[in-house]
């Protein structure tokens, strides 16, 4: 297997006349945690939606572990090993924790019954408990429906879902945007657990402290283009540097020609 987990080349998305994403060249190495930052509308979420198959890109190429991929939908991406926590939580409010964890990939018995094959609740509950333990998520009662949970618990369920399927790549789109301090801390702990386990991660975030705490590298988007690639583990960057990249005061050398 290739050492590059994810690679994109000239990834571009136009919504009608709006050029939401322009020629993004991106690389993620094995075990690496990378943050994507940028102002609102800079193309962060658009970028995530293209590589997870939620939307179809206008042009460009994507490789996952050296293999060129072309996802027709989110399920394809998931089957290929990309797990995503979306900005808008992709949870069904009236279902409980195991139901949500296994939504779309239920464990079943009697598969010859086709769409009416029987759910293996017991196995799914057991796996849910295991997954929550592994990721350090504490949820007192997994039989509770999502609508009865706090924002933090919901987010933890969403993250546990991505983390529990030993994915090849985890993507989190602003996972702590709506959370309190304690809840944010727990989500960050899950991210650290993933790092220790050597699982690669792309984190979309606005939170400078969080990004500096958690990741190895920052990619900055501006007006639909990548404008900086900052190795914060090895080079000496400050939050102020990152802000000036985000606002356009500075531009990474290798992006001088393209970024505006």
């Amino acid at each position, binding site marked *: 297997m290739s050492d590059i987990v994810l690679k994109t080349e000239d990834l571009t998305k136009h919504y009608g006349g709006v050029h939401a994403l322009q020629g993004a060249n991106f690389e993620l190495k094995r075990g690496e945690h990378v943050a994507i930052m940028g102002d609102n509308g800079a193309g962060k979420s658009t970028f995530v939606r293209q590589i997870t198959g*939620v939307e179809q890109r206008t042009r460009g190429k994507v490789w996952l572990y050296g293999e060129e991929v072309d996802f027709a*939908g*989110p*399920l394809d991406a*998931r*089957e290929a090993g990309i797990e*995503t926590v*979306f900005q*808008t*939580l*992709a*949870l*069904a*409010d*009236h*279902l409980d924790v195991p*139901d949500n964890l296994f*939504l*779309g*990939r*239920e464990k*079943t018995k009697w598969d010859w*019954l086709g*769409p*009416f*094959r*029987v*759910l293996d*609740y017991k196995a799914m509950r057991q796996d849910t408990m295991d997954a929550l333990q592994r990721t350090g*998520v*504490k*949820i*007192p*009662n997994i*039989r*509770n429906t999502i*609508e*009865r*949970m*706090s924002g*933090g*618990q919901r987010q*933890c369920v969403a993250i546990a879902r991505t983390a529990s399927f030993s994915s090849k790549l985890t993507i989190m789109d602003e996972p702590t945007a709506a959370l*309190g301090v*304690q*809840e944010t*801390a*727990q989500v960050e702990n899950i991210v650290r657990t993933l790092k220790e386990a050597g699982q690669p991660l792309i984190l979309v975030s606005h939170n400078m402290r969080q990004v500096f705490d958690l990741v190895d590298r920052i990619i900055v988007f501006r007006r639909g283009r990548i404008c900086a690639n900052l190795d914060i583990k090895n080079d000496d960057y400050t939050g102020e540097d990152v802000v000036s990249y985000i606002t356009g005061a500075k531009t990474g050398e290798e992006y001088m020609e393209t970024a505006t």
Partner: protein
Amino acid sequence: MADTSHGTGGLTFDNSKRSWPNELNILLALVIIIIVFEIIGQTAPYMRGQSFLFDTKDRFDSIFNEARLQIIILQVAIIGIIALGVTQVIITAGIDLSSGPLVAATAMVAMSFGQTELVNGQPNPKALFGPWAMDLPVMIPVVVGLAFGACIGAINGTFIAYLRIPPFIATLGMFLICRGIALWWSGGNPISFPTEQFAFIGSGMMPVVWFIVLAIIFQIIMSYTVYGKHTYAIGSNEEAARMSGINVKRHKVMVYMIASMLAAFAGIVLSSKASTAQAGMGEFYELFAIAMAVIGGISLQGGRGSIIGTVLGAMVLGVIRSGFTYIKLDGSYQLMAMGCIIIAAVVLDQYRQRNRA
């Protein structure tokens, strides 16, 4: 909320609000309604102390007034079968208005293959087709009827899921189309005199048997199968269902097909019970089926409710109808009162949900 403490991890929360399923509330409402009718029966001077559901005659072989119980259940059984399908549609946050006319259309289509050749030694006076369609095995009208329903459901589902027509409009159109088909099929003439086998489907308490059996089957399907789980997921958060990899469009078509097949089966049972099929059959059935589901706690926003709830909702509607007749309430008042009860059920449900959030 006693212990919503934000302790370690901030993730403990109140467990005491769990349990107490909505179905118990409806059961409670059912009991209260029965008690109210009993009290009216015992106290109102014009009622002369009759009992609503209990046997007050000087016999010891039964406690209940079985005749009335049977009528109540029989009254709701056929519409109840429709309501089982409508429930599934509403759980996906859709609606199906076409079921009433579909009952009539299916009754016409199925009955025309379920007629008997000779009536009292004479040729069938209501024969629609030639002798080739007479005295066919009972499977043929049933299968033709269900296939007809499946087609209508597939059309509904395709327009709603793939062409994104709002369910209300798509099924409103199908409402008129089905009524038209029912009238066109035999040029407005009734189709009568079924074969003995076909007449058996809806004879006696058979509609009740079908209703109960189908209710049990669909309760199991909705709770324990992938189909049921995905139906709830789509109604709960369609976007999440899609992102989880559920084929939402295909699933919706399947839900509308099943709903229409249940309505078609109700049409078969109704025509068999009445021994005739007429284009005007099943008037307002779609609305009563929706009412049963709504009284039974199925949320029109989707994602919430159960088949058991709808069965209880059907019983509430049946008891109210029968009770109004029992206390000799005029038909016009009955309709008004029933309308009030349906609105009250939704108001109560929304109040309950807001309290819980």
